[in-house]
């Protein structure tokens, strides 16, 4: 049993290593192009919804906390609390995805979906002309930014957040299985490995977001004060 438990945990850690490398490829592309096209990336970044991004960060951190509590409650055998924590975690995860969907929709409205990801709706943002009144639906280009490279940003944005969202969806699925398991009283202080491993996965997804948030939403904000 002990060996089994160790194997499960180590297996999940090894799996998380592969996940790190998987996201690593995209982080690399991000770093490269952010360095090459700082102005375009900052302009695009400023067009993202800072408020929603920050709220989502908080939501996800909170869900990580409830997840940690779920593991804790299983370890000490508080079943009611364990179920409650799991429900909360799932709820927060779903909220995150909901907010993300709202953001995606905003981008859709502003014609910011890159390439032909959505057939018939190519990337074609309206660019704010200098001196005209601020319009939040228009792209405000900083000096030196070119629209082409803004498209690159949005592709990286959708690729990374999309991959992250996919991981969230899988995570919510795993949590649902756990929830059913705990309602059926399957886990106990002697046997909590599934909860623990799912927790590891969930926290990992949280960590990815902890990096995505500043990289995608924050860098370059200072260039357009209050923008």
């Amino acid at each position: 049993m002990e060996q089994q438990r160790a194997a499960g945990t180590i297996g999940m850690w090894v799996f998380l290593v592969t996940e790190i490398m998987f996201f690593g490829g995209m982080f690399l592309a991000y770093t490269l192009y952010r360095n090459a096209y700082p102005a375009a990336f900052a302009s695009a970044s400023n067009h993202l919804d800072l408020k929603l991004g920050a709220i989502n960060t908080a939501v996800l951190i909170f869900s990580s906390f409830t997840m940690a509590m779920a593991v804790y409650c299983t370890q000490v055998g508080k079943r009611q609390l364990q179920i409650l924590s799991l429900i909360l975690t799932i709820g927060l995860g779903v909220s995150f995805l909901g907010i993300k969907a709202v953001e995606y929709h905003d981008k859709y409205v502003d014609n910011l979906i890159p390439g032909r990801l959505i057939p018939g709706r190519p990337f074609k943002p309206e660019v704010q002309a200098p001196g005209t009144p601020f319009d939040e639906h228009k792209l405000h280009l900083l000096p030196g930014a070119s629209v082409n490279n803004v498209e690159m940003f949005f592709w990286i944005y959708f690729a990374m957040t999309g991959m992250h969202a996919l991981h969230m969806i899988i995570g919510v699925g795993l949590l649902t299985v756990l929830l059913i398991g705990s309602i059926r009283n399957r886990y106990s202080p002697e046997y909590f490995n599934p909860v623990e491993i799912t927790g590891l996965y969930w926290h990992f997804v949280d960590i990815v977001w902890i990096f995505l948030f500043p990289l995608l939403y924050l860098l370059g904000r200072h260039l357009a004060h209050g923008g």
Partner: protein
Amino acid sequence: MSEHIVPVRVYIAIFLALMVGTALTVFAALHDFPWQFNTVIALTIASIKATLVVLYFMHVRYSSRLVWVIVASALFWLAILFALTFSDYWTRSWFQVT
């Protein structure tokens, strides 16, 4: 593997720290620091937050050496990927402008 059970107050403390970190990073992002300090600050805060999650929420602090090694190797390989790719791009003239 350790049977270590992390007390609830640690979790709460970490949770609060993460929230504060988030607020800080947003706050810092809206201020104009010289040079690349905006980037440095944002990434430092993110790394601290990630470290807290890894150490406490993911229990690495209380885990076997093997888990430490696994985490470290992931970071090491990520560093390889970045360092050697940039050994190309940074020595091309592409990045001459700063």
